[in-house]
């Protein structure tokens, strides 16, 4: 096949994909700006939006470990962004990207990664972040009957043994805000953190507040959210994209629209419990 015909074939596919998107979602495609419609985007796989998250995908961000069911906060956000970019749900493909690999140099296997990733300036040296779609403070979870159950300040928790998940901002939050007397225990997954608390390997665990609500409503029935506090510099979550991705301005544009239309707030309200009732520890 000559170069000329292959280019023509690509163009034809792109036009077809664009037409398909227009036919399926005329409203969404029409509002998206010319540069950010599904047909003109540079994507990892032609004609589809490839979205990544880690496995297992935990509630309340995903439900039943199935990102493609549209349920759970981050799944809903991803589909809303896809809609803004002109992709019908059927053109959104999910792929598993372990958090540790998400910032590896070289070509990415996803268009964007949505995995409760905190935006920091150090990380932004290596990857692109979208604007923030959620702010999540840190929560301290203990089991009922623990000697720390009635702690009312961070200082009262200094002698507790803490458990956190690796790669989260919870570790730096504990170190910087609580200054515990013993080194926090660091685990591979959220499940291991929970097991450690259940089996009293640790006195308290620190997770993001939404996860704290989820854990104490089911997985740790004897657990209670003792209080919330802020990691240094806050904790804003963004989509992760390849450094200098051409898609970054487009997802930012999509997020801005979701914000101004109130859709992002509606999704947040639908899936995330308000933290207003939880005491802020200092």
């Amino acid at each position, binding site marked *: 096949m000559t170069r000329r015909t292959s280019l023509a074939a690509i163009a034809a596919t792109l036009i077809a994909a664009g037409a398909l998107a227009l036919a399926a979602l005329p409203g969404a495609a029409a509002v998206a700006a010319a540069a950010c419609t599904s047909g003109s985007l540079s994507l990892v796989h032609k004609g589809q939006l490839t979205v990544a998250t880690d496995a297992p995908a935990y509630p309340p961000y995903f439900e039943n470990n199935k990102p493609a069911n549209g349920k759970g906060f981050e799944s809903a956000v991803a589909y809303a962004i896809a809609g803004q970019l002109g992709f019908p749900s059927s053109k959104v493909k999910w792929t598993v990207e372990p958090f540790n690999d998400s910032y590896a*140099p070289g070509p990415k296997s996803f268009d964007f990664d949505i995995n409760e990733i905190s935006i920091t300036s150090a990380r932004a040296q*290596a990857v692109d972040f979208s604007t923030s779609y959620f702010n999540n403070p840190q929560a301290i979870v203990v089991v009922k009957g623990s000697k720390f159950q009635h702690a009312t300040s961070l200082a009262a928790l200094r002698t507790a043994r803490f458990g956190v998940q690796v790669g989260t901002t919870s570790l*730096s939050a504990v170190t910087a805000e609580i200054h515990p007397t013993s080194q926090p225990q660091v685990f591979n997954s959220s499940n291991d953190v929970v097991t450690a608390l259940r089996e009293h390997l640790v006195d308290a665990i620190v997770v993001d507040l939404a996860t704290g609500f989820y854990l104490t409503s089911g997985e740790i029935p004897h657990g209670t959210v003792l209080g919330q506090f802020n990691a240094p510099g806050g904790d804003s979550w963004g989509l992760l994209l390849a450094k200098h991705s051409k898609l970054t301005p487009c997802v930012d544009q999509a997020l801005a629209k979701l914000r101004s239309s109130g859709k992002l707030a509606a999704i947040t309200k639908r899936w995330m419990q308000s933290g207003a009732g939880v005491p802020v520890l200092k």
Partner: protein
Amino acid sequence: MVILGVALAILLSPGWRTVREKFLSWHFFKMSLSSLPTGFWVDVRMFLIIEAIVLVLGLAIALIRTLPAPVLFPVRAVAVVFVDVMRGVPTLILLYIFGFGFLALGFSFIPGDETILGGAALACSYSAYVSEVFRAGIESVNPSQPAAALAVGLTRTQALRYVVLPQAIRAVVPPLLNDFIGLTKDVALVSILGPQEIARIAQINADYYFNYTPYVAAAVFYLVITLPLIRIVDHMRYRGLQRQNALVLM
């Protein structure tokens, strides 16, 4: 020439700048030099303690398996099952079972300390391997040796102690050291149970800054321990060959 060519190819590769920035950043390397040593100390202590246990337990299992008396069959059977299971199950899964599973049983005599539980898992796993090494060493001693020892009036225990074991252990020192090189690196697996050892601290830093240099720095720390061990193994092989006048064949 070949090495030079490969080095040149790497340096001229289109991604070299990215690799240098993401894996070999001097800035993050220096940062690692200050944060990694505390974690490395955790590894070294675990390694030394586990290694001592493994040597004793491994030799004990090997001796049990070579016991000839028919009445001791149940003891031998337990040793065989232990070795089979501990060698057959991936170390990572053993660690989860020891670390989280045993605690869930709720016995008060099981220590609620993840370093001890993880260390016990590694000690069991490596004892199984090492017992096989010892057994191979014992079996490599020519049967005429213990026979001669018994003939000159030594008891079975004395024959084992003064004739068989000295020859067996000398033969297996290089493979033993080989297993210990493996152990120095596997202690990092205990980090899945919570302790902040060197590989975990490297991971924390890499995840925090989105830069892989801390892993490279951790690798350098490991080499400081493993390289001398590797040289000792080589030297002992050479000495062994020398002793048997086998160098001329090489």
